[in-house]
């Protein structure tokens, strides 16, 4: 079993937010104590607040997408602060269960997934 990569069971947040509020979402993620995040900086879309189709001159109608893999408690903190933000600004968040492979920095891996009970491998 030693050769098998150890995966950590975490929450994957995918946050869509209007581009001008990206910095604030990043701040929320950082302050909640997430170990990192990944940004897809230019997306378009449609939601309750209509189509947001970009346009080269302003980023008022552009969305950003942020993915962050975090512990359950961190996810809860982030979602709580986001809930307020997306009342006024276009955005949403999606939460999924995920297993994560990190580099081994001696990082805390409280719940390694077993090959039998977990998903992969």
């Amino acid at each position, binding site marked *: 079993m030693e050769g098998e990569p150890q995966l950590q069971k975490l929450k994957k947040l995918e946050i869509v937010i*209007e581009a*001008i509020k990206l910095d604030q979402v990043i701040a929320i993620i950082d302050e909640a104590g997430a170990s990192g995040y990944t940004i897809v900086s230019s997306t378009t879309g449609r939601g309750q607040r209509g189509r947001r*189709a*970009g346009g*080269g*001159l*302003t980023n*008022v109608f552009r969305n950003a997408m942020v993915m962050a893999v975090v512990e359950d408690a961190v996810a809860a903190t982030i979602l709580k602060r986001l809930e307020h*933000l997306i009342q*006024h600004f276009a955005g949403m968040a999606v939460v999924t269960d995920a297993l994560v492979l990190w580099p081994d920095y001696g990082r805390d891996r409280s719940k390694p997934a077993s090959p039998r009970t977990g998903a992969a491998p």
Partner: protein
Amino acid sequence: ARNDPVTEFFQHSLSNLLSPMILFFALGWIAVLAKARMELPEGMVLAMSYYLMAAIGLKGGIELAHEGWTVTVVLACLAGVLLGILLPIIAFAILRWGGGFSALDAAAIAAHYGSVSAVTFLTAATFLTREGYSYEGYTIAMMALMESPAIAVGLLLARLSDRRATQAEDGPPLREIVREALLNGSVILLVGGLVIGALTGEKAGETVGPFFFTLFQGVLCLFLLNMGIEAARRFADFREVGAFLTGFGLTMPLIGAACGLLSGRLLGFSEGGLLLVAILGASASYIAVPAAMRLALPQANPAYSMTLALGITFPFNVIVGIPLYFWIARLIH
């Protein structure tokens, strides 16, 4: 050998309509009507907009260096700031009490009209060059100064009329809003260009002139192509929004132009300068102000302002406004 005014108006209109710039604008609009799959790459649009702002800034700076800081320059700058304060108040009054719009929507739209559209200005300046008229270089400094006061006025109007505008806890501090408005690429290149032009003077024209000045009109054509595309898309969205706002989008530029012409006349501007100051009053921002208003007044519907500024007022100004204001400028000069 001055022609009679009406003939002159039609000549200028026709010359404007048949300029490559306006024709490229029309091409973009037609492409959207034809549902073409055409999109200028975002990097290209941004690159052109940075280029144009740097170029007009440099031009203004070089001329400022040439003309020197006279009393007129200072008065002109003051007049610009005053226009930027007055116009949003007029616009707010019309929208709130004439149109019955919510305080937040009225304030957000008003802020756009107190600020300026650099591309309208560039198109008008190119119109002048083509027709053989000169203009005061410090009108470019006025434009740079007019980017922001309207944002503060719009916010003030909102906060005075609707408590929600003040108490948004999530709302960013005024500092961040101003930063958003003033410190975006376009404004930085305009102001930076002005300062660099003023510091380097004529000499800069020799080294960087072939890039920034000789190519200017060609780049402006492709940029207006993109404006045609974006304006047509906005215009299409607008049909849902109603007659009052359309009327506002066509009337407010006239009010703005009148205020601009008046101040230009008082300051003794040339015919070319009068046109440009009319454009400063008549045009509405769709770069700096939208982002600032979005941050400051998120409850206001951003589609209103953008549709008005980009879909109605911009085409009105470049097609009808330029020859019209110039005609009046020549009459009152």
